[in-house]
């Protein structure tokens, strides 16, 4: 890589990391939210929601074990949306102009932003998984390694989705709508909290919504990756979703056109 590009990449990643660690509450809330789900919610529902033997698990598992990949994806989803929130903030505060004034190609700059955001997601997921071990969530050591590319890909997809949304949101105040119309539907209409066969028993149309939700593919990709396996269908779906989201995210960063 040309040195200019390398300096630029380092600079963008460093800024995102610095900003992340300066907002300590962001790290705290990123961890507290899924830990509450894991420790409190999962404990309460453990008896009510038995999970039968299913892939990739070789035996009966606890509910905590089942929802762990979904909670990891929740962390990534929130981080992706948080990054898009910071892009809206940057745009309102004018610092987005500084980024777009760089002589380097805009797609490269936005990719650097996405990679930086993905690295932060990875860090948060690893910390969460270490905590999860304390409540008997058993992840094989190799699972930590094999899940890294999956986490990175999922983070890239959700970051690109956030980037796309950040351009559609014209004001910081409108970001609350993203919570209601993007984050919650994506999370609840997925296999994060319940296996889809359970959803199928309850409602067929909800089941199909869950099936077509790319977030389901993210959860399944990570679920298999944590046990050293690859879910080809989930991987293909996430790759296609990433390409589409990245394309639209990059397209949405064109200069404002002054047509009548």
């Amino acid at each position, binding site marked *: 890589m040309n040195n200019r590009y390398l300096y630029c990449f380092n600079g963008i990643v460093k800024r995102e990391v610095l900003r992340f660690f300066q907002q300590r509450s962001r790290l705290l809330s990123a961890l507290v939210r899924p830990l509450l789900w894991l420790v409190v919610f999962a404990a309460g529902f453990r008896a009510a929601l038995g999970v039968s033997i299913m892939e990739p698990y070789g035996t009966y598992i606890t509910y905590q074990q089942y929802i762990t990949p979904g909670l990891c994806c929740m962390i990534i989803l929130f981080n992706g949306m948080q990054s898009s929130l910071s892009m809206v903030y940057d745009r309102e505060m004018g*610092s987005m102009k500084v980024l777009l004034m*760089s002589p*380097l190609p805009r797609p490269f700059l936005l990719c650097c932003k996405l990679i930086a955001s993905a690295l932060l997601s990875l860090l948060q997921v690893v910390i969460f998984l270490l905590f999860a071990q304390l409540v008997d969530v058993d992840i094989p050591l190799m699972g930590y390694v094999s899940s890294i590319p999956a986490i990175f890909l999922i983070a890239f997809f959700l970051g690109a989705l956030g980037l796309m949304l950040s351009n559609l949101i014209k004001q910081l105040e409108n970001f609350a709508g993203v919570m209601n119309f993007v984050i919650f539907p994506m999370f609840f209409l997925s296999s994060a909290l319940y296996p889809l066969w359970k959803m199928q028993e309850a409602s067929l149309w909800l089941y199909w919504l869950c099936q077509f939700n790319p977030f389901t593919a993210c959860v399944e990709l990570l679920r298999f990756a944590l046990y050293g396996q690859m879910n080809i269908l989930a991987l293909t779906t996430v790759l296609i979703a990433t390409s589409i989201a990245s394309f639209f995210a990059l397209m949405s960063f064109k200069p404002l*056109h002054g047509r009548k």
Partner: protein
Amino acid sequence: MGRSDTKCAMSIITNELTFHYGKKAAIDGLSLSIKSGFNVLLGPNGAGKSTLFSMLTGLYQAASGDIKINGYDLNHERSKIMQSMGVVFQQSTLDLDLSVKQNLTYYAALHGISSSQALENISDILSQLQLTQRLNDKVRSLNGGHRRRVEIARALIHQPKVLLLDEATVGLDIDSRKMITEYVGSLSQQLGICVLWATHLIDEIAADDQLIIIDEGKIQAQGISGELCKEHNVADVYQLYRTLTANVEIS
């Protein structure tokens, strides 16, 4: 020698530029030719100064017309132009939670310059702007004048040939304004860079400055400030401004 006189020939040329916000024309067939030196763009609020700046920096795309900076076409050679352009926007664009040094090195990185090279490039500028002691302070702790100085230092980090400043002294006290206008004026002379200084503060304009008066998205007059006053038979720039524009919203 006035601050509009320099040795090199950098230039900004726009040809029949137009830009609309909905149906309203913010820039209306604007043609402009600016050479190196200190050039003042004077106009009331809403005259089109900031829109013109956004177009010159490639943040906005013209509905029609073209922009050439130092001979490069903005539509096709944006990268080359950005390498040689420094900008201070009207609204502060510093990251308040980062230190002065972190802000400067981040900007340098966006231009593909290493941190050490960046600080070396502007070590003199930092000391002239009295920022050396404040390098590790968070921007949030700086006053308005210091923040502006940081933005000017940042805009110079990649040694630009063209420097655009959009109302860079608005909201600052008299001393800070004087210091910044004098410093930028001296830069245009010493380094031969093309400075475009947008303002609506008449006391920032010297008699030998290149003056461009803009209103309703059009150029109303362009030339040496003192000569324009003579040409229009008026006593000062304020009278000149009153003569050429319908708007009196100016200091």
